[in-house]
């Protein structure tokens, strides 16, 4: 009996070792970073009422996927098969021929209550399997959001992280000559569609809007001709605006905490500025730094435990990290030049910043422990990075130098992937600066 056992065990062990040793092991270390080829045929739809709509939805979806830089939508003229329906299994060989890795089949139908239903199925062309399916019902005039939601679903299915297409961006719309610019708050979809002014008729000198991570609400510092800069709250849905207390000095660089219940800001008194935290429910203000140097631009980590800010206490403006109560302040950047506007990623793994060095401006990222600094973009003047809600993309603004003849000097919005790839200009109606990215819409 015992012998039998020993024999069996030895055999099992030997077989395990044998199979482990038999294969040739190869390390695959250098993948390509080309966008994944994806086929998106026009959404189907038999109802006459949705004939236009199904093409519009497909177009918005294709634009979202293409702009992400992670997918490359194959030209529809190359398709050799027309999907028969969202519930019909496609002939995968026909999609393999055109090198599509993923196929998206969608259908738009009119519902009896006047709304539309947008159904989508995602197929993995090489494994002949369905990767996911989703359907949204929405009023017909809300088709654009339905398209963004489908794009978000595809993005999440293929990358593992939430998308950012069904989001909006608040920015400063600038008009007029450079010396006397009129600035007003404007909001638009992340792809530049539907721009709407939020503050008309007010003549701001400067504005720094920041989105609440939990609500359709923004906070901003506004500077007018006749009073010191103050921090305001603005409800996008109702248009209501309120000043966050009245302080002796100037309050600026406000930013919401990740739970949306507090606002961090800097308050300047007698030439010195420090970081404060205000509870929105009680309006109680707590001082977090008390250094004679200039401490500004606070931003809280998504777990609410730490805060990053900039300070010139070391001689030049550098990035620091401290606990949420103000303790354990540590400097994390030591590079030449000046570091500004640190923003903690919603994912928590990186802090984005603006760096000014040798007459140039850079947008970069660094880990909260101060390691792995990477500069992603560079230009004559660029600043104010804001994270997409999934922590994958950064939007910022650039200004071009003013030429002698007075031309140039315009500001525009740009986005870049956190890997430094896929730098793109964001479509805006005219000059734009200081973008603030919203959370995913509910």
């Amino acid at each position, binding site marked *: 009996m015992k012998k039998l056992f020993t024999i069996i065990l030895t055999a099992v062990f030997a077989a395990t070792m044998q199979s482990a040793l038999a*294969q040739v*092991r190869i390390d695959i270390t*250098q993948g*390509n970073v080309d966008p994944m080829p994806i086929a998106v045929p026009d959404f189907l739809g038999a109802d006459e009422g949705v004939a236009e709509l199904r093409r519009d939805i497909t177009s918005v979806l294709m634009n979202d996927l293409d702009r992400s830089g*992670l997918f490359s939508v194959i030209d529809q003229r190359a398709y050799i098969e027309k999907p028969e329906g969202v519930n019909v299994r496609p002939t995968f060989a026909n999609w393999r021929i055109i090198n599509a890795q993923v196929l998206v089949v969608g259908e738009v139908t009119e519902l009896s209550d006047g709304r539309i239903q947008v159904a989508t199925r995602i197929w993995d062309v090489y494994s002949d399997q369905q990767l996911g399916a989703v359907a949204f019902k929405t009023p017909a005039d809300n088709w654009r959001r339905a398209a963004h939601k489908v794009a978000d679903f595809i993005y999440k299915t293929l990358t*593992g992280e939430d998308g950012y297409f069904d989001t909006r961006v608040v920015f400063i719309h600038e008009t007029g000559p450079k010396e006397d610019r009129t600035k007003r708050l404007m909001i638009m979809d992340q792809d530049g569609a539907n721009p709407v002014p939020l503050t008309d008729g007010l003549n701001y000198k400067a504005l720094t809007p920041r989105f609440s991570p939990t609500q359709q609400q923004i906070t901003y510092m506004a500077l007018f001709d006749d009073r010191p800069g103050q921090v305001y709250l603005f409800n996008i849905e109702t248009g209501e605006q309120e000043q966050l207390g009245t302080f002796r000095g100037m309050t600026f660089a406000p930013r919401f905490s990740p739970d949306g219940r507090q606002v961090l800001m800097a308050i300047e008194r007698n030439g010195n500025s420090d970081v404060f935290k205000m509870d929105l429910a009680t309006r109680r203000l707590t001082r977090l730094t008390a250094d004679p140097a200039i401490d500004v631009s606070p931003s809280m980590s998504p777990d609410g435990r730490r805060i990053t800010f900039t300070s010139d206490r070391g001689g030049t403006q550098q990035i620091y990290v401290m606990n949420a109560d103000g303790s354990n302040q540590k400097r994390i950047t030591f590079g030449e030049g000046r570091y500004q506007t640190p923003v903690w990623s919603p994912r*928590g793994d990186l802090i984005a910043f603006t760096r000014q060095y040798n007459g140039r401006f850079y947008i970069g990222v660094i880990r909260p422990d101060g390691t792995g600094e990477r500069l992603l973009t560079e230009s004559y003047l660029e600043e104010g990075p804001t994270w997409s809600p999934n922590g*994958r993309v950064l939007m910022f603004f650039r200004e071009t130098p003013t030429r002698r003849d007075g031309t140039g000097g315009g500001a525009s919005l740009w986005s870049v992937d956190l890997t430094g790839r896929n730098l793109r200009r964001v479509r805006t109606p005219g000059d734009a600066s200081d973008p603030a990215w919203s959370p995913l819409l509910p």
Partner: protein
Amino acid sequence: MRFGLLTSILLHLAVIGAAFVSWPFLPRPDLVSEPYIPLELIREADLDLKTSVPAARPEPEPVEEEKPDLPEPVVEEEPPAPVEEKKPDPVVEEKPKEAPVIIEPEKKPDPKPTPPKPKPKDDELNFDDLQKLIDKERQEETARVVETPSETVETADQTRQAIGAGDRLTASDKAKMKAAVERCWNAGSIIGAPEPEKLRVEILIELNRDGSLAAQPKVTNALQINLSGNRFWKVAEQQALRAVANCAPYDFFPQDRYNDWKSFLLNFDPSEMVGR
């Protein structure tokens, strides 16, 4: 006795368990990328032709005329050497029956002008017939090889097996495989994930003789990936599986060493791409 047996079983199980658990986590050597160096192979036969052609060509006219010609550029001291060098040509002419037989068929049109004429002595052995004979034999040989390729290959495999199977793929074969899979590995979304260096995926693939996948690839660390709850890791797993499927067939390995490349353990490791 019973206690001893129980202890023995438990200890054995513990050893096996430890092997299963720790095997994938054993420290691995640092990754060193082997660059893929493409090589152009020249068949021996091609080389033969190339060397034999110039040897056979110069024969015709030059032989006699060269003596007066050469002296002009090379000056007086040199002439003797070239004269001797040219001598081999007539040698070729004289020994056509043995060696040149193989060369002649291709050269047929060239040598015609002069050399073939000195040979009339051997005419009893009709040269054209001989050539046809050789051609025919060659064709038959080729036909035989085409008809029975698998037999030949299998015999070769068996012999190798008898000697002892093992990892006998050359560095170049491994580099080819690495380059092929890397070309299809779309890592764009992985390198932007948090802590991408941790998203390692190990896939076991088995190949048919034609290089196609013989079975569904197996993710050997699938349990670890699923237990982690890390959705980025899950996506990395899908991307690696997609790369393996996209790149098939892997039809660049030598048929006679099928045993050496019929299965691979592919370790998709993004750490080098993110500089960690």
